[in-house]
């Protein structure tokens, strides 16, 4: 008989694999009061307690700028992810925390800018692959492209991998923005 820890934690503490000791990757969304130092608190919590941050995004999400949403991709065992959630929830300026990965179906998207410097065959191949991925060329010179691609992180990973032999010069990624599917919100 295991109970969720509090009213606010609708999340369960099992990983998608269902095994307690398996690490999994979780997308955690945190709604915070938009005050100075709040990001340092969140990041300091991760470094201070030895949790991973794979990526992190933050921006104000309300008209008056009073609150920001932080999306963190992290990994750990179900117990660690649950600790991360609880520790975040404890921070004074944190309004809400949700582990989207266990909350239910969700969408996580990120954007990447990829610079490819090449000519001839490689250049044509890069453009062909970009089209197949529906990436946009946002900057074009005789010897280079900058492609913009939005989508799931895995899709971005494979796009970058395919560009590697074709003159990949630079990559800039945003980290994920994430929401639950359906009418429910955080």
């Amino acid at each position: 008989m295991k109970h969720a820890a509090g009213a606010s934690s609708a999340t369960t503490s099992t990983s998608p694999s269902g095994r307690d000791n398996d690490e999994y990757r979780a997308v955690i969304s945190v709604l915070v009061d938009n005050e100075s130092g709040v990001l340092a608190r969140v990041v300091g919590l991760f470094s201070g307690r030895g949790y991973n941050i794979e990526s992190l995004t933050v921006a104000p999400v309300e008209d008056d700028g009073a609150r920001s949403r932080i999306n963190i991709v992290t990994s750990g065992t179900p117990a660690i992810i649950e600790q991360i959630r609880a520790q975040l929830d404890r921070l004074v300026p944190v309004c809400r925390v949700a582990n989207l990965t266990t909350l239910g179906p969700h969408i996580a998207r990120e954007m990447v800018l990829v610079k490819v410097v090449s000519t001839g065959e490689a250049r044509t191949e890069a453009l062909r692959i970009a089209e197949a991925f529906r990436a946009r060329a946002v900057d074009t010179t005789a010897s280079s492209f900058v492609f913009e691609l939005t989508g799931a992180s895995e899709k971005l990973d494979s796009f970058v991998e395919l560009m590697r032999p074709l003159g990949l010069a630079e990559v800039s990624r945003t980290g994920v923005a994430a929401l639950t599917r359906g009418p429910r919100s955080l």
Partner: protein
Amino acid sequence: MNAATQTTAAQPNASTTLSGAEVLLRALEEQGVEVVFGYPGGAVLPIYDALFQQDRIRHILVRHEQAAVHAAEGYARSTGRVGVVLVTSGPGATNAVTGLLDALMDSVPLVCLSGQVPVQLIGNDAFQEADTTGITRPATKYNYLVKKPEDLARTVHEAFEIARSGRPGPVLIDLPKNITVGPAPYAPPSTQGRRSYQPRVEPDREAVREAVAAMRRGKRPLFYVGGGVINAGPEACEALGRLVHMTGFPCTSTLMGLGAFPSSDPQFVGMLGMHGTYEANLATHDCDVLIALGSRFDDRVTGRVDAFSPRSFKIHADIDPSQINKIIQVDIPIIGDAGRTIAAMIEEWERAEGPAPDADALKNWWEHIEGWRALDCLRFTQDPAPDAIIKPQKAIQRIYELALETGRDTYVSTEVGQHQMWAAQFFKFEQPNRWLTSGGLGTMGYGLPAAVGAQLAHPDALIIDVAGEASTLMNIQELGTIAQYRLPVKLFIINNQYMGMVRQWQELLHGSRYSESYSSALPDFVKLAESFHAKGFRARTMAELDDTIRAALAHDGAVVVDLCVAEGENCFPMIPSGAAHNEMILGPEQEAQGAVVTNEGKMLV
């Protein structure tokens, strides 16, 4: 003069111009602050000037900012109120950090006001500038840098609310000098709390019901209570007493929980953990229902985690949801105030639904416990000869017994080390808030300033610091504060000429190589006392022990007592790090069933 101007004159409002420092003091007053522990400096001079011009808030000048924080902790823990600290920027703030972290680990409500360079100089490496909010972020429950005068009053009120509510803790407010010098509007406390901070107080009834059902089914139940019950207040402790009595279950306590349940009660089995009693640790190991109230499964309590209370059904009630399943997986978590949770448990227990508790099983359980108790795990042998060397255990036991004889309300603080553990073992606490010790952080130098804070809060009470000769030197300068305010604090130094706890571990784990743990070049504590205007005493032999303690307790001013005790005593029972509760090392008096300390154990130390 019309009515309106009269009110204005008597009670300045936003339209009269107050300085930030005056607004600050007014907010403190409104929060019921009577005492502030502090030390001045450039960045806080405007606040000191405002303090000078009023007499409602008393300022206590300590001799080091770390001591200001520990004094505020002693004040807070002995009263249940918020302790207040005032320090200057830069070194004043950095000196306070140890105390803040100490308060964070032990959930002590504090508000620390630190000076800061003017807003326009922040970031310029100005004189005595430090990134105080950055440095103290992981050492406080929350902190603020006030950048606008209109935020000042609201911030102060909110800081108090955050410090005392939920799981209490230290809150720091960094105050740039231009904010305290310049004008600022006053605002009363707001009635609605901050949206993002809504600690859950009321426990989930369904969870309580299930917990009580499990308690009724228990054949070997045990209460394991911690400092959270004391933080929930005297009523919560009183309710705990009722719950323990109505269930008939045994009750153990953490170091921080001592006093939540009366130590002399037959249902109390003593402290558990690394230096806990034999009966408490074996009961924890063997119980089938463990009811954790306001305790957090600290590593000094659990020992080897995978061997902790291996067969029990675990109920964990705590106000801090992040403590649930952090170290030990539990079966029923209950989030809420310990007092409300205990009250709800009492109601459920009285409702008497489900199977009746198994009286025979409980009787059997108590027989087991009495068997363990019969070992008398704290027993030691003291040579009674008049010229015999005093054992530290004896010294501490006699301090307790002779203090009890005075019949006075007694508060005890400690430093950190063997003497602290012996004090925890030998002192009996019948009431909460009487035991002031640094648990989570284990800060040497805590006890003397904590005694200062407690004595200021309770001018007529007997305040004792049970100290080690090494620890006490870490904040010995507070004898100056004690002298200035004529505080009749009784400092008993258990002088074993060693950092005894370090020496003990070196003996047990590092082949008796006593690396740097000898207390060389100690001062003459009697002369030291005299130079600080206190009375010094010394006892070297059994013949002198009782008379010295009696005389020290009877003296109406501050005393420093140098109790010269045996050097080589070890504190038992002991669960070595990395060992399980049933692998305790017992004292020479008791049958030794020595646990082999593993290499893994050495790493955990």
